[in-house]
């Protein structure tokens, strides 16, 4: 799969041709929206080089909602995000990382081992409709760097609201939903399905605004907890 989003990656290497320069001026007009627009957004590195190449802009978006659809809870979808969360929470100007309605208890020794600063972690217990409300508050308040939520049901317009809130608050929103909801429409910037492999996960990009779609296999590093002791 190609890492270069069509329309913007090839531009800088073009010869300084007069006509091309005028075209570039026109294309830089703020009212003009292009398909590769999302690629220019600031991103957080995901911590996995192969995933960074595949993601538009080279990482998780800094503001906006992404949807993660694991085939089963616990196949490795959180591991995918832990390196980025660790980098986010340990910045000097780090804001909160809010985890809304986690299905089980996040085990602090493992989070600490993954490098997450626990003092920036916020666990929000909410049920049903309150879960999406709490996530919207977290994303839109501007007090969080990242907002994670585990929700079973979400309507397309609710997801659109969440995405707008995330952009307003300059927050990375992550919504974990069951694999079955891949059929529904969604306004999220990224939608990815996570399947387990023997020592890693297969990530399938269902939707990637400004990037390419496709699947890639990631292998956990040897130092990663859980990589050890498996037959």
């Amino acid at each position, binding site marked *: 799969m190609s890492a270069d989003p069509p329309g913007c990656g090839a531009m800088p290497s073009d010869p300084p041709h007069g006509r091309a320069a005028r075209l570039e001026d026109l294309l830089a007009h703020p009212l003009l929206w292009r398909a590769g627009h999302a690629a220019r957004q600031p991103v957080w590195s995901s911590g996995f080089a192969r995933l960074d190449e595949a993601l538009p802009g080279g990482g998780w978006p800094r503001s906006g909602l992404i949807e993660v659809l694991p085939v089963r809870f616990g196949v490795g979808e959180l591991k995918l995000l832990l390196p980025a969360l660790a980098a986010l929470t340990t910045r000097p100007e780090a804001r909160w990382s809010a985890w809304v309605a986690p299905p089980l208890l996040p085990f602090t020794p493992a989070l600490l081992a993954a490098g997450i600063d626990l003092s920036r972690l916020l666990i929000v217990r*909410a049920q049903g409709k309150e879960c999406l409300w709490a996530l919207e*508050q977290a994303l839109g308040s501007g007090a969080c760097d990242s907002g994670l939520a585990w929700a079973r049901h979400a309507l397309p317009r609710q997801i659109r609201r969440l995405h707008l809130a995330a952009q307003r608050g300059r927050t990375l929103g992550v919504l974990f939903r069951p694999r079955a909801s891949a059929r529904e429409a969604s306004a999220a910037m990224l939608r990815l399905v996570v399947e387990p492999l023997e020592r890693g996960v297969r990530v399938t990009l269902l939707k990637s605004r400004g990037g390419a779609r496709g699947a890639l296999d990631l292998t956990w590093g040897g130092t990663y907890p859980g990589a050890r002791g498996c037959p």
Partner: protein
Amino acid sequence: MRARRTIDLFARRDECPSARLEQSLPTRGHERASGPGERSPRPAAPQPQVARGNATPPAGRAARAAATELWLGLHLAGAAGRCAPQGLQRLAIRALRFTPRVSLVPPDGLLLEVHASLRLFGGVEGLQRALRRECADLAIAGSLAFAPTPLAALAAARGECAVVLQDAARLIGSLAPLPLRVLRWPQEVLDRLAAIGVRTIGQVLRLPRAGFAQRFGANRLADLDRLTGRAPDPRERFEAPVRFRCRRELPCESGSHGQLLAALAPLIEALGRFLEARQCGVLALECRLWHRRAEPTRCVLRLADPLADAVRLTELLGERLRMLTLPEPAHACELRAGEPVPRALCSSGLWQSGEHGGLPEARGSAFIERLRARLGPEAVQGLAVVPDHRPEAAWRVTEPGACAPSAIASGEFAAARPVWLLPVPRPLRQRGGLPRYRGALRLGSEPERIETGWWDGRDIERDYYEAVDVYGRRLWLFRERAAPHRWFLQGVFA
């Protein structure tokens, strides 16, 4: 020095009203023999020297000050003394109507400076009657005494010697028979004084100053000086706690939360101004809605930080009201604020939070409060690590952000731990001694043994395994080492 018995606690003998008595006592032995009753309140002849004692300026000043002050000491007796703090404070609030100068002497004393109030309340007798009525209202038993110095008034009240003493000159004579315990000195000091035969205030006042200070401490001497008015005795003034409380009738009966919030807006604004003027914030706020027939609905808001901002208060109260179900439309609303708490004011930053150099906490607490207002105070929490080898005990819930950063170095967790933990391990079915969880499980090779915990009664003996289930998930299981050898699921590596 022992021979010179005449070196007195008082620089000038004529200041001591009981000096005459003392002169007639030949020896110290005699002094010990004479009981306190013997030398009792013989009101010494008025001694004009006290008033014009310009020879010793400090004493003279204190005496002049004492002449314009009259302190009422109140000692709460018995059971009331035990349930003190509230009783004392409630009495102090009531006493504020007699005089603005009220001081608390915890746990069971109250002082009122009443010199200027005597005429208004019908003299000493009238004041006494009025105060006793207040005590009876609150079911508090106490004894009263009037004296020119606060400590003397308190001591007399504690000694249940109902003196009414407006004349500073007769002060010491009246206090002399009181036992020393009324001064609340440490028992050890009282015992030592008793050993040398000193049991009353009169006796202790007759001891030599220098020697007394050396043996019993300068603080005790200072106590005596304050008692007799030689040294000033400033008292901290009791300020009645001020709280905001405001009620408003609605223009029409309403049950809609938007209209109620609009009706509450002026009250919240007034509360904001009230707090702003005092540079305070509130930690608790109660909103009451009054109905025609049903009991008033109460809606309590608790805050993490002292807050005075009307906009944010409106926002939080709005969330609370939205969660409320009213039995019937309300016709009036009332806002009651908790005690104002001093609030640290800080200037707002140039950058927004999250931007370079922005303060992360700036809007963080507002966001947490909004979540708590709707989901309940327990719904938003932080997590911390506890250095314990047992998985159940290795974590705890904290206030958000309360976890000290990197209390434990991340390198200390060499062993693999799952990201998700089941707070209560789930028992697994077995087939042929092997665990099953939605199908067969593939067990990892080497178990990790975690055991003991005898110190808090949660002893464990387990062998932990990693296993992969049919869906490819990595699970964290353990097998009990004790007899039934049951299998449990405790975590998910995700």
